């Protein structure tokens, strides 16, 4: 068992009051990652205007770390250009949360994957226009 008290204050704060929960109508991109077998599932919605991410929302099925990293990644991407956003790694998300217990690092990978996938979706939609 993971000692739940191993979560940093920042993780617990984001877990208690997650930012940007929900969906965006007509999003510029959606990233859906994870699967029910491994436990955590995340959907990330982004709104891009003039190459800048102006809004981000998420829905997550998962543990405390999964919810906190989802919340944090939506905060981190807002106001960033698409290229800047692509540089955000799962480590950066975890660091912004004051770190994660080692066994929980895999949960933060989900946030990075969701972001990459949402941006790919956005680029694909751009290409189709």
């Amino acid at each position, binding site marked *: 068992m993971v000692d739940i008290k191993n979560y940093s204050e920042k993780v617990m704060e984001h*877990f208690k009051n997650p930012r940007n929960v929900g969906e965006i109508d007509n999003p510029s991109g959606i990233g859906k990652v994870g699967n029910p077998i491994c436990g955590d599932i995340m959907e990330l919605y982004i709104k891009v205007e003039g190459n800048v991410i102006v809004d981000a929302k998420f829905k*997550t*099925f998962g543990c405390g770390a999964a919810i906190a990293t989802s919340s944090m990644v939506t905060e981190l991407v807002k106001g960033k250009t698409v290229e800047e956003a692509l540089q955000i790694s799962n480590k950066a998300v975890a660091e912004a949360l004051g770190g994660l217990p080692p066994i929980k690092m895999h949960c933060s990978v989900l946030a990075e994957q969701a972001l990459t996938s949402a941006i790919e979706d956005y680029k694909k939609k751009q290409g189709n226009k």
Partner: protein
Amino acid sequence: MKRIYMDYAATTPTDPEVIKAMTPYFNEICGNPSSLHSFGQEAKHAVEEARGVIALFIGAGGDEIVFTSGGTEGNNYALKGVVNANIERGNHIITSSVEHHCVTETCKFLETRGLKVTYLPVDKYGVVDPEEVKKAITDKTILISIMHANNEIGTIEPVAEIGKIAKEAGVYFHTDAVQTFGHLPINVDELNVDLLSASAHKLYGPKGVGMLYIRKGTRIKSFMHGGDQENGRRASTHNVSGIVGFGKAVELAKESMENEAVIQTKWRDKLIKGILDKIESSRLNGHPVKRLPNNVNVSVEYIEGESMILNLDMEGVACSTGSACTSSSLEPSHVLLAIGLPHEIAHGSLRFTVGRFSKEYDIDYVLEILPKIVSKLRAMSPLYKKEKI
């Protein structure tokens, strides 16, 4: 904030009376039971008294009780000890797919040593079918090990029936009674067991002490070698205060277990009904009636267990989950998978276990806060939305 402990299946608080009984055995009565002087003999007397109480409690003889460091040691001893002593007779053991890790991991270890192990499936309630046990027996089978009741989902196994089959086949039968000992009546003859493990900390005794019942005549090799304590069957200086505490815990259980079971069953059923009524898409795991009096295990669909535990903890309630994200293996509970739950529903399981110091208020409180927690997490869940739109 008031904290509410609902994880009695993990461990119980030591009863104040047990602590009182143990206290003199740390310093006042400080001897080593193996010593010949009066200090030693006082300690020995206390150990033997506890042994007598425990033996009587399960209808065994005092010389059939071996003190151990707990349930894990008892289970390791039973399996490895019987295998080591009977390997020339056969190399096959039968167990179930819902045993505690200390049984399954021991079996896996024994497999690396060339043993054949049959892990019997269970039905959707977690019950082992005695007929399946019978069918699995071969002329190479030396041991059957099936737990008395499951620690996660609370299901009580048909141990007496399986024991009868084992007896008729001339195969040793072991049961892990860690979850039932001190909670349900146990008689080793009625249960037809040759070996039975118990652990004091599940019945308001101290942690780190337990016992293995070994029926007279059972061929078993010691696996703790050293001094000749416990008639050479378990070396190491006795945990005197622990054993005294274990004995006291059994005395208390003898008096109160019947009443406690009645009250806890009432609370258990109230909590189960309350959760299933108040939370849509929730389900009970384990058998509806053939279950431990204090065990509630439910799955709440579309959300994950750890996030529920964290929210419950913030509201002061301590319970547990079989979700993968809380285990170091990142696998959901093998018990929940064995009863056929899909992974995502196994991830959403919660176990509440009450005990001697619980109050009915605790049940009411969980029924008040849990539906709110579930709504909050479901509003965040991508799975919930999909099913609902």
